[in-house]
């Protein structure tokens, strides 16, 4: 295994473009090292991007949006109070991944590029409308988070491409987000179901919403029917039931060691309701 620690994304991209065999980028490494150790994936080329300037930065932009470096860790995000005030759902989703120790290393970008349908931060990012900059041999392009994963363990990134920055939109007024997942224990598990909700209100009425589901299909889903179920409502019981039904209907899960099809389908609806209520309360400026 070759190990490189380039000083720029262009250099990293060139290294990857010219590499043969299996290439992996190393950010937090919390997935790459597990796969390496279990000999599931032994890369021929490992490119550590943490020596690139600014990769751990968390910057707020003039328009209220946020730009995160690809090696900013979960712990860095949790300690950033302003980011947490704007996007508590995204920060909490990231914070749910693994232990305190894993938080010291794990990153949004790594969670995304690992391609797991159960990745906790991804539904939250999709709900929030997060985009990423992809740097490749032909320069940079902006891609919506939901367009990165293409299936379990697979992404739309081409050879030589890597994510070089994460962009979270401006929160704006009267907005709130939330992410909830189901795990059998209180910590340390992979999501059996995950739901991210981001919404905006006009008074008591939901005017915008994005609802995303994790671990219920080969990729994280952005479910329009869920959004439709609550837009125009004050999140009354009828709309919440419609939201739950839409969430369950969107599920296309598998039976596996972590949960059954029936369980995932049912719980997706339960969590969608609960997450929507939290996001709604946050949008109203209430504690949730």
């Amino acid at each position, binding site marked *: 295994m070759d190990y490189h620690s380039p000083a720029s994304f262009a250099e990293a991209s060139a290294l990857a473009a010219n590499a043969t065999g299996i290439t992996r980028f190393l950010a937090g490494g919390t997935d790459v*090292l597990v796969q390496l150790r279990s000999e599931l994936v032994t890369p021929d080329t490992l490119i550590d991007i943490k020596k690139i300037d600014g990769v751990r930065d968390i910057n707020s932009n003039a328009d209220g949006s946020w730009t995160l470096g690809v090696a900013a860790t979960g*712990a860095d995000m949790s300690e950033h109070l302003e980011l947490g005030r704007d996007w508590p759902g995204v920060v909490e989703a990231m914070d749910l991944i693994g*232990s305190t*120790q*894993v938080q*010291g290393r794990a990153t949004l970008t790594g969670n995304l590029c690992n391609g797991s349908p159960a990745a906790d931060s991804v539904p939250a990012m999709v709900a929030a409308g997060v985009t990423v900059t992809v740097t490749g041999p032909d320069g940079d392009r902006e891609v919506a988070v939901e367009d990165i994963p293409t299936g379990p363990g697979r992404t739309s990134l081409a050879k030589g491409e890597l994510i070089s920055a994460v962009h979270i939109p401006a929160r704006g007024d009267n907005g709130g987000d939330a992410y909830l997942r189901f795990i059998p224990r209180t910590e340390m598990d992979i999501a059996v179901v995950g739901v991210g909700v981001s919404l905006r209100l006009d008074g008591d009425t939901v005017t915008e919403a994005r609802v995303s589901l994790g671990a219920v299909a080969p990729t994280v889903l952005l479910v329009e029917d869920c959004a439709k179920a609550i837009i125009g409502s004050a999140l009354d019981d009828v709309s919440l039931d419609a939201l739950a039904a839409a969430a369950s209907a969107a599920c296309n899960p598998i039976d596996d060691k972590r949960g059954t099809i029936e369980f995932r389908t049912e719980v997706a609806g339960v969590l969608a309701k609960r997450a929507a209520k939290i996001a709604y309360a946050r949008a109203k400026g209430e504690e949730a």
Partner: protein
Amino acid sequence: MSKFHVSTTVNGDAVDYLCDPRETLLDCLRDKLNLTGAKEGCGTGDCGACSVTVDGRLVCSCLMLGVEADGKQIETVEGIAEGDVLHPLQKKFIEHAALQCGICTPGILVAAKSLLEKNPNPTEEEARYWLAGNLCRCTGYDKIIRAVMETAEELREAS
């Protein structure tokens, strides 16, 4: 396969080692530096027995490569006591029998010390969640949590 020369600082001492890029920081601490206090309980970041801090950040040393340690400041369980004076957590763990077999103890002490440095006044729930990545199979965590909470209280009173 070429090896990498790594210069790093462990418990305040400058150290050097050569490592294969596939070797973890835990492998390097244990096999090259003879610091066997950090344990490998799982190798997948699920048990916390290999906990160390890197530049002040609590991590699993099994989830970090040895080559990544270059230029970093690493603290392990061997560095918790000041000379022959035990850290209050170490004393309290012995006093409370917060260990039975003792295999998880080094990782838990490193993690608990990191908690109290960040949050000198944790609630029981905060302490339990902070330590959720440190598995203990012997104690049911009761005496561990009591030891951490009592140490926190004593440290607050002392400062």
